[in-house]
């Protein structure tokens, strides 16, 4: 491989081009390599810069009356959701990895389904469910007392929010853990058993500690999704930082909104640093053979127990909300506003397609393209571009939104002003979801032999042609998977879309949310179900990308 890289000149016409042209195109290439990462930093810079400006009494009021409430609620919510998601995710992953029982293979992918249900859809179902449970609370008021009743009403929104977020987000931990458990741990568990550990103790002393990085990675994702959530917390009336940012913005104090967004960023960064720090010096990869866990068969009562335990999150996160929406949809089919639905579907689809095309093209460019053209940068470029995922949606929204409205003040291009909002939205999607494209493609690239690309070069292709004819084909599975994931993420996205969309522009997500928050849940059933169906595409993609080796 090395001789090919250094001594073989690409047999295209690059060498015959004048030297300045070659340098210029390399400069352009390098600039384009850094562009995505720079774009990710742009909203941060804007918000950081603008929030230094004067905010006046609005900010003081926010600090005095609202900030600690926001901060405390956000931190508490993240903590509760993460802890419970870990408990649920790890348990399900372990049951599915260590035991064999009837229907196990189905259960393995069924457990991912709740990921396809947007939080606010599940939230609407539960909100209605709580309303149905009102007689219970009335009973408490009658027979236990007013204070108990009031207490229950204060707890209920928290209970609902945590429940909804846990049952729709636990699949992140589940998938991460499942991959870890499916890895090379059989030898280690056997070694532990030979040293006197029962299987249960071996789980706690070996398997769980070794899965810690995976658990932490999944938990970090859950934490970020929770921090970014707007739909669920708004439905239940929990005041976290994300709705707080938008509230300050709509009250006219952009600077307050930006500062709150920065605080949210700080919180998210803190969580991510925690995740990194817990790794320490320990190793996590053994040099053992790829011998996966041998499953222990369970039958009868024990198998039923496994199904019950795993069935609970599946039921709560997927079956029940979908079932309720199906019933509503069937009941409300006559009062549906179909033209609105079609419009929203159209918008959701083309937005998602456009965003995912841009994201995947970027991912391909940053990974294979960079390597093919031998541009500098390495992994750090990919890492920086992936940072976009960690930036809170609220921050992206205020940052890019401010940029867009500033730009539209400049110059008299009215049409640009209106379409700039949509461009800003796709730009925000791009920044946020770049990581969703890069990670699978980079992982796919690691598996692709560079030799093949080099071979194409020696056969006379220019770097670009080799890129398209060889790397593109080889990376196609990873690219497809990334495209599907990205499509679905944008399809379901609410927070950014709600705030940054052009006027009169509804996506399925915003439409569903608006209808459910207006209490018109039955009318929301059709777009909600379409959203879930779209989510299933993402679930299928994830399952394919993360299929356990057995």
């Amino acid at each position: 491989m090395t001789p090919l890289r250094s001594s073989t000149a690409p047999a295209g016409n690059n060498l015959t081009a004048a030297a300045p042209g070659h340098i210029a195109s390399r400069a352009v290439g390098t600039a384009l390599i850094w562009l995505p990462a720079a774009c990710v930093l742009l909203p941060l810079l804007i918000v950081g810069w603008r929030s230094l400006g004067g905010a006046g009494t609005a900010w003081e009021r926010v600090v005095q009356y609202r900030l600690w409430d926001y901060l405390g609620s956000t931190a508490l919510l993240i903590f509760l959701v993460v802890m419970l998601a870990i408990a649920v995710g790890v348990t399900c992953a372990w049951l599915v990895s260590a035991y064999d029982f009837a229907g196990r293979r189905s259960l393995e992918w069924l457990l991912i389904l709740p990921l396809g249900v947007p939080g606010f859809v599940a939230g609407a179902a539960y909100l209605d469910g709580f309303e149905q449970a009102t007689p219970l609370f009335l009973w408490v008021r009658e027979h236990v007392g007013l204070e108990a009743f009031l207490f229950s009403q204060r707890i209920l929104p928290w209970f609902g929010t945590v429940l909804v977020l846990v049952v729709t987000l636990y699949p992140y931990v589940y998938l991460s853990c499942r991959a870890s458990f499916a890895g090379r741990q059989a030898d280690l568990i056997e070694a532990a058993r030979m040293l006197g550990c029962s299987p249960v103790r071996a789980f706690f002393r070996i398997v769980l500690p070794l899965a810690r990085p995976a658990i932490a990675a999944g938990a970090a994702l859950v934490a970020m999704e929770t921090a970014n959530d707007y739909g669920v917390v708004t439905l239940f009336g929990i005041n976290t930082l994300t709705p707080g940012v938008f509230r300050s913005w709509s009250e006219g104090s952009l600077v307050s909104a930006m500062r709150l967004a920065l605080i949210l960023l700080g919180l998210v960064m803190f969580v991510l640093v925690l995740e990194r720090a817990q790794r320490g010096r320990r190793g996590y990869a053994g040099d053992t053979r790829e011998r996966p866990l041998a499953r222990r068969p369970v039958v009868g009562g024990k198998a039923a127990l496994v199904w019950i335990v795993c069935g609970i999150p599946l039921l709560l996160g997927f079956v029940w909300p979908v079932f309720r929406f199906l019933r509503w949809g069937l009941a409300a089919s006559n009062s549906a506003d179909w033209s609105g639905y079609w419009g929203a579907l159209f918008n959701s689809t083309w937005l998602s397609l456009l965003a995912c095309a841009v994201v995947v093209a970027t991912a391909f460019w940053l990974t294979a393209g960079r390597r093919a053209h031998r541009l500098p940068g390495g992994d750090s470029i990919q890492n920086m571009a992936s940072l976009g995922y960690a930036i809170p949606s609220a921050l992206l929204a205020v940052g890019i939104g401010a940029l867009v409205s500033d730009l539209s003040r400049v110059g008299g291009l009215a049409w640009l002003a209106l379409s700039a909002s949509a461009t800003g939205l796709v730009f925000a999607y791009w920044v946020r979801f770049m990581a969703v494209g890069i990670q699978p493609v980079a992982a796919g690239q690691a598996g692709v032999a560079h030799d093949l690309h080099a071979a194409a070069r020696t056969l006379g292709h220019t770097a670009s042609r080799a890129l398209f004819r060889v790397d593109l084909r080889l990376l196609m599975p990873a690219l497809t998977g990334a495209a599907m994931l990205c499509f679905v993420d944008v399809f379901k996205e609410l927070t950014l879309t709600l705030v940054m969309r052009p006027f009169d522009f509804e996506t399925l997500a915003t439409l569903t949310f608006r209808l459910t928050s207006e209490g018109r849940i039955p009318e929301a059933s059709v777009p909600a179900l379409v959203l879930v169906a779209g989510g299933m595409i993402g679930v299928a993609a994830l399952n394919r990308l993360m299929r356990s080796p057995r």
Partner: protein
Amino acid sequence: MNTLLEVRGVSKRFPRAERAALDKVSFDVEEGELLTLVGASGSGKTSLLRILAGLETADEGEVRLGSVLVTRGRAILRPPERRHMGFVFQNHALFPHLKVGENVAFGLGQGPSGRPPRRQRVSDLLDMVGLGELAGRYPHELSGGERQRIALVRALAPNPRLLLMDEPFSSLDQSLRLKLRDETRRLIKRQQATTILVTHDAEDALAVSDRIVVLREGVVQQVGTPAEIYRRPANRYIASSFGPCNFLSRADFADPTRLEACRSIEPPALSGEECWVRPEDLGLSSTDGPQSLTVGVVLQSLYHGESRMISLECPSPQGSSIELQVRLHGEERATRGDRFHVLPAGA
């Protein structure tokens, strides 16, 4: 000496396999001895070891530890964690998230008198293999040889009744292997640990074992001391597995009676016509003599450092020619094309 382990009629067949992995394997292990299971890959030896450990089930057969039945057919009557056996895996299986000291201490459980005795034992064990100062490192920070030694020490730490070792030296390079092999045997003997070692390397088996069990395609070929295996192999397969061997037919020699002078192998199932002679039991002379077996032309001379392996082509009275391997020690040289007389060594 007492019998520590009894293996009776253990058989196992993997699904969709053409033949059985293990076919009615039976042998005993005495207390304090180091027994080696030798066989090529696919001979079933690792499966057997794992069945003894309780990590896998057999289809039929019994395993008795002491006088306790621990495995009968598919039933694992006593799970691995209660068999009080040590197991050294082929790739060490050191816990990557624990330090070396913690790895070694893993099987020691909660000491009744608390920590200091445990720590002392750990450091004693580590000192025994010369790795005392590595207690605070993590496994991924060690070299291959160091990891192998830690794995051994970890398995020995709880004073197991039986130590099982699965190809412990196969991942090491030559010089390290030899060193570790000797060190391992010394350590085991010092701890007086009964050991079953699995390997595909005949040389390792001969070097360390008290007794050897030879397996081929799941069937026990022979059980015996290294000398017995080497000098009196039960069949051709065993003979050639443990070193080069000349398989001679009396009809290839003008005077077959002279063969009696070789320290030849006398397999019991031999038909009168065959005679097996190890290369080191033959010698070369430039002159003919009364004990000369035949004469031959050197085909090839391979230098092995402490010896030389010469291949000669010798005419046979039957008309064809045979090839003989002769191992020479000393400084005698032989080049291709030389003519030599072949005679029993020491003659």
